[in-house]
């Protein structure tokens, strides 16, 4: 069967969500044995994926997923105990599906699954168990290659069900083929189908893109009754299907388990009285959403300047309209900004699997606790946060938590704790990753720092610089390079990634008790609070978060150190970087004083000199076209100001880095 490309994009999106749900479900299966609702949810993820793959013609993926589904069905019926080896195999099956779906997304073909994995799933699907090492079936049964789509019958006596299927008239137009459901029923047993034309209008009144046909089907099957329900899981409105026992007497019949639909076509927008209206969601292309957010932000900036126009007319209707427009502009901006927000759960849901895999590999026992998963963050931030968080979690497991025997010897619970918690703190989101392991060995860090020449040999152990050594590139205290960490590649990248998201990362560690890393992030990347500054006659926006302090110093208080400009600010000698010089502009003569923006670079203060501070602005960030300027690293984007002019948004760390590079090239590096 050829791949139906019309719905492939939707399928890929849905498939990734389903795989995430499947993984989350599998992760909890061991702990929640007997929790019927949980196992049903996990089963449904596999089942829905199978159906969706089949509908777009990805029969290989559908067949393989059927194998996963069959194993989950065994769990559900109690025919197979939930064991760690079985869960591991199912997680590996999920990984195969993820790679197959990625291959399809990239326009390729899904690769073949590992033959041992298929064999193990076959053993599990027939109720066999795996040896702890996996791939060693404890019973010998011919492997099922999942061509037997009916699965293993749980009920041996065939039963005939009458299925009345009344699809919503929009079903065809929405791209769902009602026959797909009948095909799925056919997989469960012997199906006799009769089409009904009761609601088919005369030819002249027919809208040929709507579905007026209904069906009555008798299914004789040994499958459990619940398997029939699962066939119709995709249906938004369950009233479209009624299942009754065709071979039972009316008294015994569980007929009309779901009420029959009202006569006439059922429409999505006509819910029956008393039914709960389910909130609907629309998938929107992220790029288009960003465009909308950008436009709404620009509109708000423009409407913010409208109060200046109130005096342009004495007509009261004029001022009323201006006020209303201003209010609506802000409302539109705030509403569209909210559209970019997603719960961190989307990110956190991937961690239990990671912790399980790593702890298994390292032979450590870990209890992972996740809190505040409903905290919302800008979608772009969440997309970029996965790698740094993974790094911190790996570090916590590999470097932080001790093996069980060491923990016991230290009087600790042999099961290590890792806690990931998110929450709002002021106008920022804080994410904490904590472990109750060894904590940071400060003496070891210092020794390594001295050996690498990062700090002077006489640095005392309580020097604040010791704490920041772990963020230096190439720094690692791990004696042996492991598979997971200890290669000295990482915390500097973590810090840089978080900085690029306009966030900060810090940590607190108590030797013997554990370490907590704290990531603080802005709620959104779409808009910033900024300072409007002027240099060489041009205006720039500087994100306020990058500025520790604004200082105005008389020119005579400026000094120089080793030939480079500097200033003493509250006793601290601070090097000065001139914005105009860095950007290759001409210096503007100033009236006896310098405006300095104090920022942090490599944990030290650096002052960026500008001509004038013009005030605070709220700026909607638009991406920067890299062809626009030669100092790309100095800018993080552009914005439109209230007067309609375009301004570049500065990245002060880029400005300082550019200045530093220029000095290095010129033979006089800016020293930290």
């Amino acid at each position, binding site marked *: 069967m050829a791949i139906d490309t019309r719905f492939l994009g939707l399928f890929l999106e849905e498939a990734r969500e389903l795989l995430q749900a499947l993984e989350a479900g599998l992760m909890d299966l061991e702990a929640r044995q007997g929790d019927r609702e949980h196992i049903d949810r996990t089963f449904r993820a596999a089942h829905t994926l199978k159906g969706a793959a089949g509908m777009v013609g990805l029969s290989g993926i559908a067949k393989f997923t059927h194998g996963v589904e069959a194993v989950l069905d065994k769990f559900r019926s109690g025919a197979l105990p939930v064991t760690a080896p079985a869960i591991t195999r199912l997680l590996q099956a999920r990984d195969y599906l993820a790679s197959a779906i990625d291959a399809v997304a990239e326009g390729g073909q899904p690769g073949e699954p590992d033959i041992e994995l298929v064999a193990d799933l076959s053993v599990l699907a027939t109720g066999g168990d795996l040896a702890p090492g996996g791939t060693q079936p404890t019973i010998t049964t011919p492997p099922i290659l999942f061509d037997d789509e009916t699965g293993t019958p749980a009920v041996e006596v065939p039963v005939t069900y009458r299925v009345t299927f009344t699809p919503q008239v929009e079903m065809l137009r929405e791209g769902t083929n009602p026959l797909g459901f009948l095909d799925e029923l056919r997989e469960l047993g012997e199906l006799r189908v009769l089409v009904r034309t009761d609601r088919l209008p005369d030819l002249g009144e027919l809208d040929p893109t709507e579905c007026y046909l209904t069906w009555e*089907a008798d299914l004789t099957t040994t499958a459990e009754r619940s398997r029939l329900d699962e066939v119709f899981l995709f249906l938004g409105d369950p009233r479209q299907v009624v299942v009754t026992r065709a071979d039972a007497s009316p008294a015994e019949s569980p007929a009309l388990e779901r009420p029959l639909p009202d006569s006439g076509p059922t429409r999505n927008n006509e819910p029956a009285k008393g039914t709960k209206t389910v909130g609907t969601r629309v998938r929107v292309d992220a790029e288009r959403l960003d465009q909308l957010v950008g436009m709404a932000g620009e509109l708000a900036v423009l409407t913010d300047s409208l109060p200046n126009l109130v005096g342009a007319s004495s007509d009261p209707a004029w001022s009323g309209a201006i006020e209303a427009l201003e209010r609506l502009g802000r409302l539109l901006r705030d509403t569209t900004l909210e559209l970019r927000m997603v719960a961190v759960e989307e990110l956190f849901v991937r961690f239990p699997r990671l912790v399980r895999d790593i702890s298994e590999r390292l032979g450590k026992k870990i209890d992972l606790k996740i809190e505040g998963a409903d905290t919302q963050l800008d979608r772009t931030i969440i997309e970029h946060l996965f790698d740094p968080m993974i790094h911190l979690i790996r570090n916590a497991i590999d470097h932080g938590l001790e093996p069980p025997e060491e923990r016991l010897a230290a009087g600790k619970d042999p099961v290590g704790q890792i806690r990931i918690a998110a929450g709002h703190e002021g106008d920022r989101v804080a994410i904490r990753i904590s472990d109750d392991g060894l904590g940071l060995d400060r003496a070891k860090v210092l020794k390594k720092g001295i050996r690498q020449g990062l700090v002077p040999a006489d640095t005392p152990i309580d020097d604040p610089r010791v704490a920041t050594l772990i963020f230096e590139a190439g720094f690692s205290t791990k004696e042996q390079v492991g598979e997971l960490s200890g290669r000295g590649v990482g915390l500097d990248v973590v810090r840089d990634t978080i900085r690029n998201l306009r966030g900060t990362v810090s940590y607190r560690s108590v030797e013997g008790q554990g370490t907590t890393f704290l990531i603080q992030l802005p709620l959104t990347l779409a808009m910033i609070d900024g300072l409007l500054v002027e240099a060489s006659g041009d205006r720039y926006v500087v994100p306020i978060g990058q500025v520790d302090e604004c200082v105005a110093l008389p020119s005579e208080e400026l000094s120089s150190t080793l030939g480079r400009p500097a200033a003493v600010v509250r006793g601290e000698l601070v090097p000065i970087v001139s914005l105009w010089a860095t950007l290759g502009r001409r210096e503007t003569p100033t009236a006896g004083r310098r405006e300095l923006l104090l920022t942090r670079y490599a944990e030290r203060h650096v002052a960026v000199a500008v001509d004038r501070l013009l005030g605070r602005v709220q700026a909607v960030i638009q991406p920067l076209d890299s062809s626009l300027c030669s100092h790309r690293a100095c800018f993080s984007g552009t914005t439109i100001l209230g007067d309609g002019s375009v301004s570049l948004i500065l990245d002060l760390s880029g400005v300082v880095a550019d200045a530093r590079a220029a000095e290095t090239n010129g033979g006089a590096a800016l020293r930290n």
Partner: protein
Amino acid sequence: MEGCDRFPFCRFPPMSEPSEGPNDGATTLVFHGPVTRSEVAKWHGLLVSAFAKGPVRPVRLDLTASGPWDLAGLQLLLAAMISARKVGREFILQGPPSVLRELAERAGASALLAPAWGETQA
């Protein structure tokens, strides 16, 4: 084969116009190519105009060169057949391709369409 009259470079055959059959006075429509959700509105319009032609005469659909088919196309056939029956008009499906027969079987519509099936495509 002549091109479609709407676009000079189109390689698809022209849309069928209702024409009178040679012997039985039936209005004959020739269905070429896909009869699926995307194209069904076109075929629907054609059928409606054929049915609008009075007096009541048989309607023959030549399906020999039609396909692929989907449920929307099948539904259109059923609607046409039922509408024809209501006014006592004979409705003939000539040369239904095997893909249409299989679809009808899958949808449980074979028995309903059986009286209208004419010759099967070779």
